[in-house]
């Protein structure tokens, strides 16, 4: 962390750490099969395949236990009713869970992007160096808190507050806005979309902040200085030079942040209210695909159909997160700040 935060931004073509210290020019000396380098390579290169093998085996196992033909297109319908007593009337439709996932992850992402853009700018541009360093570490530390801790905090501390203070107030004063009008029954308990979005936002902010912050830090010093030398104010330099530069990291921040938000399970499970319906307001209880999985998996061992349905949900979730993360990393790599990515 510390190293990341204080490492000076390098010039246009930063040497990539790790390849910069390649030994002896190639071609002259025949490679010694017992050199430390060769031994290290022999030891590590098979190990390098392990993550790929894991990923492949997860995908294969899920695909093999998939019974999509049992469900067909009704799988995207609105009724989720794992009727254990009469399986013939059981239906498995995940529409409301998909909507719940999209709403929580989407709103959380928008809020997190706004927040982390502000944080990144203040950390890189405005705050004096020592304060910036400390606050950078603190933001990064937020990423390391186990999600169940966020869940407990949200559930124990925030839910009563939301239920008794914030939700009634928001509903009363902003009730004319769509999504804010609600009956007291809706925000009883305090759990629901709003609390889930709030918790998710806090959980996504460290990631998106790190991406934006490092891209701001990577701006060549000359560009900033020439801007200032031309008589631009700091605000103008920020707006004309630094922000356009940072803009190229926004797609990867959005994608990686979305991947984090849509896959988050335990914390959301604890605060989202777990109602299966189309939300009628921001205070409605809801469910996501991830909370559906964690909530019903234990029962699924008893009802084969439920297990099959949950496997489909897991596959869908896996596909979404793979696509989002691959795209995010691609954008990230295409930016010029690949060398500063480790901190994220």
């Amino acid at each position, binding site marked *: 962390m510390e190293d990341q935060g204080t*490492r000076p*931004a390098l010039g246009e073509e930063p040497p990539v750490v790790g390849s910069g210290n390649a030994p002896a020019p190639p071609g002259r000396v025949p490679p010694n099969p017992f050199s430390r380098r060769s031994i290290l390579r022999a030891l590590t290169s098979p190990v390098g395949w392990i993550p790929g093998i894991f990923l492949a085996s997860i995908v294969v196992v899920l695909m093999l236990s998939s019974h999509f033909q049992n469900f067909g297109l009704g799988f995207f319908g609105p009724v989720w009713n794992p*009727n254990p007593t009469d399986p013939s009337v059981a239906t498995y439709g995940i529409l409301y869970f998909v909507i719940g996932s999209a709403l929580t992850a989407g709103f959380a992402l928008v809020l997190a992007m706004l927040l982390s853009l502000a944080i990144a700018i203040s950390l890189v541009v405005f705050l004096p160096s020592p304060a910036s360093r400390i606050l950078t570490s603190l933001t990064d530390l937020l990423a390391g808190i186990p999600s169940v801790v966020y869940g407990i905090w949200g559930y124990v501390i925030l839910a009563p507050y939301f239920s008794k203070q914030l939700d009634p107030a928001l509903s009363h004063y902003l009730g004319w806005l769509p999504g804010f009008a609600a009956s007291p029954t809706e925000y009883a308990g305090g759990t629901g979309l709003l609390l889930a979005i709030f918790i998710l936002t806090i959980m996504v902010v460290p990631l998106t902040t790190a991406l934006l912050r490092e891209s701001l830090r990577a701006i060549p010093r000359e560009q*900033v200085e020439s801007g200032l030398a031309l008589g631009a104010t700091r605000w103008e330099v920020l707006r004309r030079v630094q922000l356009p530069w940072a803009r190229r990291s926004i797609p990867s921040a959005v994608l990686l942040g979305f991947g984090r938000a849509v896959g988050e399970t335990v914390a959301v*499970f604890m605060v989202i209210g777990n109602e299966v319906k189309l939300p009628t307001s921001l205070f409605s209880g809801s469910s996501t695909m991830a909370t559906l999985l964690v909530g019903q998996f234990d029962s*699924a061992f008893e009802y084969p159909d*439920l297990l099959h349905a949950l496997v489909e949900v897991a596959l869908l979730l896996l596909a979404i997160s793979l696509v989002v993360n691959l795209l995010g990393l691609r954008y990230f790599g295409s930016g010029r700040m690949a060398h500063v990515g480790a901190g994220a």
Partner: protein
Amino acid sequence: MNAIDDRKTPPPIDELTRRGTSKRGSGVSVAAAVALAVVLLLVGFGGGYALEKSYGGSTTSSASSVAITETGSTLIAPVMSLWGPNYTALHPNVAVSVGFTGSGTGISSAESGTVDIGGTDAYLTPATAAQYNLINVPVAISAQLVFYNLPGLNQVHLNLNGTVVAMIYGGAITTWNNPLIQAANPGVKLPDQTIIPLHRSDGSGDTFMFSSFCYLSWKGWPNGYGTTVKWLASSPGYNGNGGMVSGLQNTQYGIAYIGISYETEALGYGLGYAALGDNLANANGTNPANYILPSATNISQDANLGLLNLDPPSVAVSLILGGVPGATNLQLGAGGTNPSVADPTPYPIVNLEYLLISTHPANPSHQRYVVEFIQWILSYGNEPGKQLSAVSFLPLTPTVVGYDMEALQQVPVSS
């Protein structure tokens, strides 16, 4: 501006040295991390070893040490965590491992034979049990309470019968001052407020019992019974009994089904619980017969019902007395219906907690230890006021213990 300049103007030489140190630093930190991991491992194993010694006392004969594995119901796991070490203290060569995994996992692990004992709140039906060569061994009695959060009325035990409760959870009754509720509670000023029914969002034996109660109490109950069922769209879900308690505390005008193990916790939050109508109370409340409080006596009586009323006698039964008008209804895994209830004041949602063990063990000499452990649970482990009361379970009745002991005879063991 300074901030920018500071950061952007490193002399190259500085950069080189900085990288040098940071690399040396990273080598040191890798070494430190490895050392830390090694230390942690040593401490972990060493600590385990020390614990083993302190528990085992003279356990030097590790050759004869036996590991009994249990997994399943999170309701059983706490008392299992008391039974296990207490048994090990008496029998130092036997160690019991306990898994807090849920009834579903307990059942599937027992079926696949990956554990010696599967703990579950829901019995295995006789057919399934026979298929997997398992037997249901009840080891304790639990019950379920219907709690509510009604400001000003939490000190009153409202009278609710099964039909009313099922209609609330089924959406047919939506406000507290509904005539059906009012009729059962003459003289109580019920609020004109929407009822918020809370449910368990995780798969749970409590949901199994409660949905059985609804299913058997109201003909209009839509969604069957099981450890996970569909609930009303407006019913918020909470995780675990603990979640239900704190969720209800935050939810005025809510109602929730909560295992008796959490009674003390719920009362500590000032929540109220209902006296549940027995099977004689009918839907319109005109014959409210008895409303029964979940006292120890009222609960224990139920445990014998399956053994006294069924032919053949069975413990594979949820002791759910549904209020379908005109019918006395035990829910029977064994398939019987409408036995006569000799019990004068049966609390309507009572459950046995089961351990599942194999009747065709791969290793009969190992199974001997499992059977001995369960026999100990049935005798010393069931002493009133001791280990069971720590988790608010009730001891088995002598009738059930006698049945269990006989059932354990079926298990082939060898020494």
